[in-house]
């Protein structure tokens, strides 16, 4: 090897090293800033992408969904922790809005407003919106709450530190710190059931088919058909959470 080629190969080597080091440095500096873009990520893959449809016109407020959820998922049987619950909205003639959900609707509802004062009244079943841009996942300091490839937002209770930041970040009030486990808890869309091809407990129990669960990528599926045939809205669209819980006949008064 003559002196010239030796010099040029050394230069080449130094260039490569410099490039690699520089590249590594730049990527390590910019990597953390990817975190800032969390709320604009797009879903990946071609597998099932689950969403939920709720037809408010069909909900009769029986509360069986809320009860089935507690039974299925070991949710404490107290009137304040719910993965799924039903709200009764009553809009009075004078515009006043009354919202009630005694024991999450499990024991049924009574109407406290006299009939003649009611402008309209309806039931709104609530549960985790399984957002595609979930603020709860964004804020979790250890990554214990995450989104599965099927678009289901879950909590790993063996990893959760119980800081409660996700509870604060959820605009829909769907999370709580489990009083026994001391970790965050929420609707899992009955992941243990859907992964075996069985519908979530709340969907299965609904006597009036007010709840639809399905794959948003399946253009022939029941959920997509429901979305096509109805004018659907999500809760708090201004939050830009990419909610995948779609309501038919959702009144603007519902928060």
């Amino acid at each position, binding site marked *: 090897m003559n002196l010239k080629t030796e010099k040029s190969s050394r230069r080449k080597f130094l260039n490569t090293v410099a490039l690699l080091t520089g590249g590594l440095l730049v990527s390590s500096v910019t990597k953390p800033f990817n975190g800032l873009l969390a709320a604009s990520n797009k879903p990946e893959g071609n597998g099932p992408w689950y969403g939920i449809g709720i037809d408010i016109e069909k909900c009769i407020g029986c509360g069986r969904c809320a009860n089935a959820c507690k039974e299925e998922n070991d949710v404490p049987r107290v009137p*304040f922790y719910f993965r799924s619950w039903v709200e009764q909205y009553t809009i009075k003639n004078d515009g006043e809005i009354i*919202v009630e959900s005694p024991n999450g609707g499990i024991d049924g509802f009574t109407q406290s407003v006299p009939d003649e004062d009611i402008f309209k009244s309806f039931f709104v079943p609530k549960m985790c919106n399984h957002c595609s841009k979930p*603020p709860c996942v964004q804020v979790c300091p250890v990554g214990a709450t995450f989104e599965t490839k099927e678009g289901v937002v879950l909590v790993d209770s063996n990893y*959760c530190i119980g800081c409660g*930041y996700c509870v604060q970040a959820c605009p*829909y*009030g769907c999370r709580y710190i489990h009083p026994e486990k001391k970790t965050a808890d929420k609707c899992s869309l009955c992941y243990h059931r859907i992964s075996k091809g069985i519908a979530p407990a709340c969907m299965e129990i609904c006597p009036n088919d007010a709840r639809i669960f399905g794959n948003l990528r399946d253009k022939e599926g029941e959920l997509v058909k429901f979305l096509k045939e109805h004018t659907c809205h999500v809760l708090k669209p201004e939050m830009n959470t990419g909610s995948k819980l779609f309501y038919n006949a959702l009144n603007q008064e519902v928060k």
Partner: protein
Amino acid sequence: MDPRYEALYEALKNVHGYIYPNEISLTWSILIVEYPYITGLVAGAFILASLNRVFKIKALEPTYIISLLTAFAFLLVATMPLISHLGKPLRFWEIMITPHSTSAMAIFGFVYLWYLMIVLLLEIWFDYRYDFVIWSREKKGVMKYVYKILTLGAMGTSEKDLKWDKKIGYFITVVGIPSAFLLHGYVGFIFGSVKANPWWSSVMMPVIFLFSAMVSGIALVLFVYMGINFIRKKVQNMPTLDSIGKYLFYILIIDFTLESLDQIHRIYEANESFEIISMLVSGKLFFTLGIMQVTVGTLIPLLILGLFQFFKPADKIRKIAYFIISIFVLTGVFFMRWNVVIGGQLFSKSLHGFTTYNLGFGGQEGFLMALFWMIIPFGILAFLLWLLPPWKKTVH
């Protein structure tokens, strides 16, 4: 009835309007009020020390080391309320080991360590290195070896060594100022970035937190400085007190202006959360916000300090006034944190109602635990003042 749920059943009776069922208990308690409070005291005390060092303000010199040691004592405790509030406190290290890059909270560990290890510890060490060497020569018994270890083997006492200590110390201070801003601005971001909560979600939050931190830190140094002089039976240095009072006045004006701006903005914009927030402010937060934060913590100190800028009563009166002001301001800023943390959880995200907060006496998140984490830093400060007495430092 399960005793675990007794308080929640009681709270259920006191719900006004409608709240989501999971909102009955406040997820963040008084311990999370303390966390930004203590962190703010650290940042504020450090900034006061830096003002003195970088801008060479003669009158503040007696408070320089005290500010640093106070910041250090409180910083050591800053994470403790946070950790003891966790559902799984023993898993806290997961934040450091597997931080989630999109989480504002996950970065806290690193911001904290940077500040504790790099900025404060190093600055204090370079400030004391020369004294460690001298004390390791003068002292007898165990203390001789303690100071020897603290020198970390850097035993040089030449002019050149001293120059280096000063140079590096100055450099750290310069790095430390933005670090202190980062530390507390960041704490504000933890709340300000929660879009689900209209009481928190504000771009002003980090700035407000930062200035209120400076206010509280300066008030704490004023309190500690006067306390130390009182305990050591030393005469209070009036130019120093006046000077701290002057800075407290200026920063308090900025802080009050920023907080007012935030509120005026909310009132004028009057978006969909306006009704519930105005009910919150005039109802459940009336005492803690209207009386404690604004009147006691801001307006009264502003009036008195403002008056002192034009008219100076006798030393004795000013001394008492400064001491009372320091307590008022410290109380006011505590309630500011309270109003943010607790206030932000009292109304439902459904914007249809309110829950209540009952501070328990004992227990993991009770009054006693909160008091414990407030007293501990003063104990640490007392120990630091004993180990590293600023009044025995060689002037250099």
